[in-house]
């Protein structure tokens, strides 16, 4: 495949060093009282992007058309990149000798803090795209709010991730509209996907003590404030897609953020963590 010269990207090592040197002093990183909640919250951020990224990466080589296959792989790579930043900061806050890789590859399912929504199996393209859209619409609002976080480190990561997630949302909402308002077959599949995923969406906005502690510290927004923004995006897109918002409760399936997962997470981790578990410290 022809590719133009990579003239626009300067030396990444130099870029990373410059970014590291520019890190503002962040009092939250060493705040002992805040540490347990801040660490847990950072794991939630990192685990959401890690598990969703892994799920989406499962399409690599299996996409319905080459173009969609590459687009999905790009999205997965964006999310894994964000994971490195979130879990990297989590490890720094924890200050217990672990790094981002240790957190990703050596934690057990009960220590994972991702939403149940993102660990659900890919199903068909309808489920994959609808899940991505429902999460993207939340992720976008969350990251937007995080760009003015009281933690400069969090704000920096959010600013970088927001550019990627803005495109994710643009792409997933466009495809939800195209498929929802597409053929009879695609419409039926999209409605079925929405009905299936709907009870898992409320967890995104269900705040617990961890969310309240980081909100209190000004690190993250109150999740309840994001709900009306998410609802508006979802209502607009679903209407254009001629899909009907389910009437059932949207918060029937929660607990992932506290480590109570569906059976599916265990299978993901078995695949994702096998190499590091079998050959500790292996690298390439």
């Amino acid at each position, binding site marked *: *495949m*022809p*590719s*133009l*010269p*990579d*003239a*626009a*990207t300067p030396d990444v090592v130099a870029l990373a060093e410059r970014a590291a040197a520019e890190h503002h002093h962040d009092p939250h990183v060493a705040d002992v009282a805040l540490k347990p909640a801040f660490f847990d919250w950072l794991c939630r951020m990192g685990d959401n992007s890690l598990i969703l990224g892994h799920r989406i990466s499962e399409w690599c080589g299996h996409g319905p*058309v*080459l*173009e*969609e296959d*590459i*687009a999905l792989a*790009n999205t997965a790579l964006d999310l894994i990149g964000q994971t490195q930043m979130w879990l990297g900061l989590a490890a720094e806050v924890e200050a217990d000798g672990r790094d981002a890789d240790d957190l990703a590859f050596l934690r057990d399912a009960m220590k994972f803090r991702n939403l149940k929504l993102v660990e659900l199996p890919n199903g068909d393209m309808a489920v994959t795209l609808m899940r991505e859209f429902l999460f993207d619409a939340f992720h976008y609002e969350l990251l937007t709010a995080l760009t003015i976080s009281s933690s400069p480190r969090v704000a920096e990561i959010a600013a970088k991730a927001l550019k990627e997630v803005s495109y994710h949302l643009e*792409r997933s909402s*466009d495809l939800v509209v*195209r498929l929802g308002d597409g053929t009879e*077959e695609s419409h039926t599949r999209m409605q079925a996907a929405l009905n299936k995923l709907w009870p898992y969406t409320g967890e995104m906005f269900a705040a617990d003590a961890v969310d309240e502690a980081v909100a209190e510290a000004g690190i993250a927004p109150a999740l309840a404030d994001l709900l009306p923004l998410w609802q508006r995006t979802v209502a607009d897109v679903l209407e254009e897609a001629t899909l009907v918002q389910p009437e059932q409760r949207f918060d029937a399936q929660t607990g992932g953020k506290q480590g109570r997962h569906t059976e599916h997470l265990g299978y993901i981790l078995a695949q994702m963590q096998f190499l590091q578990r079998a050959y500790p410290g292996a690298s390439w």
Partner: protein
Amino acid sequence: MTKKEWPLWEIFIRGQHGLNHRHVGSLHAPDAEMAIRNARDVYTRRKEGVSIWVVPSSEITASTPSEKGPLFDPAESKVYRHPTFFDIPDEVGHM
């Protein structure tokens, strides 16, 4: 369900401001908007572009390979059409 192939699009990317759009390849998409999205994902993953053009492949009119002789051969013996017969003063430097 019958499987219908999406139409083919030719993709042109401008690498930097001031440069021309350059043909980089082709891809399938149901319409122009998605052709641009797909081109973004297929051809600008490594930050290669600042602008994308998409053109339906069916809109491209190409010269016929069998007419290669009459079209291009007459230019072969006309080296004087290359501007290589001028002496460039040293002060001009690299042109």
